[in-house]
């Protein structure tokens, strides 16, 4: 039944050699992932040692990261290296296409690295084995300590060439790291590469922190903290570590997100029990009230062009999703299905809104068009919420909690991702329990 996803491979028997013949259609599910061989990158013998990086092993490690990225997309099938038929340096110059075709590879990645004068020089090539030609090639130079990012950038370039879409590998995820028993959770802000590496903690866990979100340049994060037992929205500069309260509100502020230009924060402010949506301009500090209603209005999210805001409100009784102009006019309810809807998040492509739906005691992550039509539920579970989009609008990350026993035992919170096709659901590896994920944009853009 899971035949909706498949890779479109144009048959090469006609031997039209003038263009690349492999391409991947990622708008559908994937029955048959593209067999791809990722050769270890050849390490130039002139390479020098750099700090504590094992330069001799870098070529192999980079290729493993690329393979792992590809495998996680569900669109590619990275082939086992034992079957490889050519040495990395020779393959990189000119592969013997027929030999690689023997192991059923349809695409081949080769590359070379040189570490010299404290610089890491990388080049790689993507080969179309069926058409027997080079599809793309790129060389760049960076600092050797960036070697993991090198692997992600190569992965992005190959993904872009084969799918026609931007990649999402050179990205990070900020989330809330959780530990301790369920009724005494310790929560810290944490950041990691999208593949789970390089985890860093940004707060110590002394106060409760929730819902971190990146700004468009990924240098700032807005989140909610209970510092001094005053629940407020904060702004954190990841590079300098400086943080400040956003605005001077005489009560709880929460559910923050950046505007798409990064200049404003949109959030809820609870005044005498009633939560409405406000924006604050970070430069002028001007606060604007966007909604004014006696119901709960929260979880606001801008459209990528900044013209609209999606939010959830219980003004009709239970939580539903609404869309309005960014000045608060023209409020329209867009969800009318059975159940309760929350956490609308506008796709970076602008075409869809991801949401959490609650129905008959079950929780769903889904997507719909921005007018509420075309609802598709992607995954159902005991508890899950808070989708966040990959920068190319193809994958959602969210968190899922398990049911606890009478003493809270068996409880866990983990990050999961799923393609908007509804396929390729998988758990992200995190060092601790985790919730409230937010996906960065591409770091190298």
């Amino acid at each position, binding site marked *: 039944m899971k035949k909706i996803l498949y890779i479109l491979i144009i048959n090469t028997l006609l031997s039209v050699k003038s263009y690349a013949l492999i391409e991947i259609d990622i708008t559908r599910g994937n029955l048959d992932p593209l067999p791809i061989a990722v050769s270890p990158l050849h390490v130039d013998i002139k390479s020098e040692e750099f700090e504590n990086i094992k330069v001799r092993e870098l070529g192999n490690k980079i290729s493993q990261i690329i393979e792992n990225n590809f495998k996680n997309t569900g669109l590619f099938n990275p082939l086992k290296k034992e079957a490889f038929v050519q040495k990395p340096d020779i393959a990189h110059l000119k592969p013997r296409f027929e030999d690689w075709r023997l192991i059923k590879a349809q695409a081949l990645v080769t590359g070379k690295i040189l570490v010299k004068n404290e610089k890491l020089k990388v080049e790689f090539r993507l080969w179309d084995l069926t058409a027997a030609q080079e599809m793309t090639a790129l060389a760049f130079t960076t600092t050797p300590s960036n070697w993991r990012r090198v692997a992600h950038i190569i992965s992005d370039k190959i993904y872009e060439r084969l799918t026609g879409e931007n990649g999402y590998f050179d990205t990070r995820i900020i989330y809330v790291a959780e530990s301790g*028993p369920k009724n005494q959770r310790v929560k810290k802000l944490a950041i990691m590469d999208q593949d789970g590496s390089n985890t860093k903690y940004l707060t110590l866990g002394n106060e409760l922190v929730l819902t971190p979100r990146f700004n468009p340049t990924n240098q700032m994060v807005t989140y909610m903290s209970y510092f001094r037992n005053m629940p407020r929205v904060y702004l954190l500069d990841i590079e300098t570590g400086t943080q400040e309260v956003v605005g001077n509100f005489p009560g709880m502020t929460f559910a923050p997100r950046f505007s798409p230009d990064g200049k404003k924060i949109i959030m809820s402010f609870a005044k005498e029990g009633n939560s409405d949506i406000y924006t604050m301009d970070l430069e002028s500090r001007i606060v604007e009230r966007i909604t004014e209603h006696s119901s709960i209005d929260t979880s606001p999210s801008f459209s990528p062009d900044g013209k609209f805001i999606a939010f959830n409100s219980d003004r009709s009784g239970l*939580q539903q999703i609404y869309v309005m102009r960014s000045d608060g006019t023209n409020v329209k309810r867009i969800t009318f299905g059975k159940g309760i809807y929350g956490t609308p998040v506008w796709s970076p492509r602008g075409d869809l809104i991801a949401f959490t739906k609650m129905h008959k005691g079950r929780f769903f992550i889904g997507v719909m068009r921005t007018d509420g039509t075309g609802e598709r539920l992607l995954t159902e579970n005991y508890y899950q919420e808070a989708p966040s989009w990959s920068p190319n609008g193809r994958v959602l990350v969210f968190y899922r909690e398990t049911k606890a026993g009478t003493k809270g035992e068996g409880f866990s919170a983990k990050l999961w991702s799923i393609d908007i096709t509804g396929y390729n659901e998988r758990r992200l590896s995190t060092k601790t329990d985790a919730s409230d994920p937010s996906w960065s944009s591409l770091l190298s853009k």
Partner: protein
Amino acid sequence: MTLYTNLKNIFLVILAALILSACSTAKKSGVIDGDVYTGTETVEYLAAGVPDRVFFATNKSSLTTASRATLRKQATFLRKNKNLNVTIEGHADERGTREYNLALGERRANAARDYLMTYGISGKRISVISYGKEKPVNPASSPIAWSQNRRSVTVKVN
């Protein structure tokens, strides 16, 4: 095979009986009315006979008759202890999205605060804070636990 089936049937009957009796004891002891908690298991006291918390129905912040009675006792207690200030903590159960639950906890705490104020307690003496679903009193994932967690708790500040 038949033995196995028989055993299985007996087991199912016992299980059903257990479930039924569990339900009836819950009803008899009056632990949940509708889906509002009416028991005393998690309740603490500001003073003798003055419960510190009231409970809410799912997604609701309206006060039940029992909640109003509790809050009137709190108001009487606060009138007698004029120098005492309190914080009302609003909470939600785990079966809702985090951000909405923060707003819901705020609304519940304010419902309790407003009621105390109508009984003559100055709003200056009552601060509110919402913890959403972040601080469950009962960590279990069960209807009883959720009903105990949908609460506002009046806490002495000084």
